[in-house]
């Protein structure tokens, strides 16, 4: 229990929150990394998944890419990128690795969501004379939205976790508080950093939980 009070004392010490190594700065980095990489990943994955899902092509790839992503260790990819020329530009390896691991769940979920749209609805829309583009935007994409959002949620949680591991390979973010704690052999700091990371991850999950509960109401209006 002593470590817990020490960790609490570490967290409540305002000196640990200020400065370049402070909690606020690391939290900001973590948030920016997560949001920026989530946007980049969505811009890459969703158009591909929506078009593939609409055309009904490339399904094996879109579904299996998630399994491949799971088998490749994030830490290994971060270090491999760090040793390539990408490692020369600051947060480059972190951003690339984050995007690489966020794309598979987005792609798989959005593709499956598009394919699971009731075929009768699609045929009815076609019968009403909708063009492929209208069908995609007005029928398939809205009906696939819960699955797409599920993918965004998985990707966001994955991003938070990967951004934490990035600290092991010299990236910024809350994970740095943990790695610095290990380097200082300071268990209270390690635990305090871990608590911050865990709370951050749970908050991200909670935001999506709330968003998902609000979402269906729009569809049934």
């Amino acid at each position, binding site marked *: 229990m002593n470590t817990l009070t020490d960790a609490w004392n570490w967290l409540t010490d305002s000196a640990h929150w200020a400065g370049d190594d402070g909690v606020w700065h690391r939290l900001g980095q973590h948030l920016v990394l997560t949001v920026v990489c989530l946007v980049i990943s969505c811009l890459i994955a969703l158009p591909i998944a929506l078009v593939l899902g609409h055309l009904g092509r490339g399904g094996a790839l879109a579904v299996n890419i998630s399994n491949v992503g799971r*088998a*490749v*260790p994030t830490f*290994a990819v971060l270090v491999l990128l760090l040793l390539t020329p990408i490692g020369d530009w600051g947060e480059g390896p972190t951003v690339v690795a984050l995007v690489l691991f966020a794309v598979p769940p987005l792609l798989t979920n959005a593709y499956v969501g598009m394919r699971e749209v009731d075929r009768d609805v699609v045929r009815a829309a076609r019968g009403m004379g909708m063009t492929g583009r209208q069908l995609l935007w007005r029928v398939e994409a809205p009906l696939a939205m819960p699955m797409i959002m599920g993918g965004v949620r998985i990707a966001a949680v994955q991003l938070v976790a990967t951004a934490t591991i990035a600290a092991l390979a010299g990236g910024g973010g809350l*994970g740095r508080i*943990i790695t610095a704690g290990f380097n200082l052999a300071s*268990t209270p700091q*390690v635990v305090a950093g871990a608590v911050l990371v*865990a709370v951050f*991850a749970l908050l991200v999950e909670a935001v999506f939980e709330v968003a998902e509960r609000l979402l269906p109401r729009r569809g049934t209006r």
Partner: protein
Amino acid sequence: MTAPPDDCLARNEWICGDYLSTRRHILLDAVGQHLQLTVLSVLIGLAIALPLAVLARRWGWAAGPVLAVTTVLYTIPSLAMFSLLLPVYGLSAALVVAGLVLYSLTLLVRNILAGLRAVPEDTRQAARGMGYGPVRLLLTVELPLALPAAMAGLRIATVSAVSLATVGAIVGFGGLGNLIYAGMNTYFKAQVLTASVLCVVIAVAADLLLLGIQWLITPWTRARRG
């Protein structure tokens, strides 16, 4: 004075046969540790997950809390999970195993529970009608029918454990992750690439092995199709 050797190790190349031959023992030790960490944690996870899932199925009210706790556990990033266990286990292999157990547990409970729930009510009724007691029903009807879903969970849990074990390098027990960590600090490209590739090879091999086991222990899923 001898001239510095001009081999792929000296040139720090990504792919290096000399690395494989000169560091074979280091690699084998790391693979051994990696396998131990993974197998141990998945087995412990399975041993805890199975009763939890069965209990959650028996008592409906328990399912909500069990699933909520596993979701929370799964959301916590691996580095933070290992760090939270530091006060309990210190810098030890037990810390890594405990962290990995929590993740496998989560995946396994969800999948086994989903498998048990998918057992058709008619099938259960029929078994009861034939005089099956609750234990016999569970062991000879429900669990076998839940096997495909449970095995899917086991495969995901195993592959994830292989991948996450590398993060254990932070406490010095990461199997191949240790080599990746050391290779990062010394910019040793051959070591990082070799260890990373071995991780993926282990993950794929474990996945195929479990797929083979599933094929062997669920003959009825093939008979219907054939």
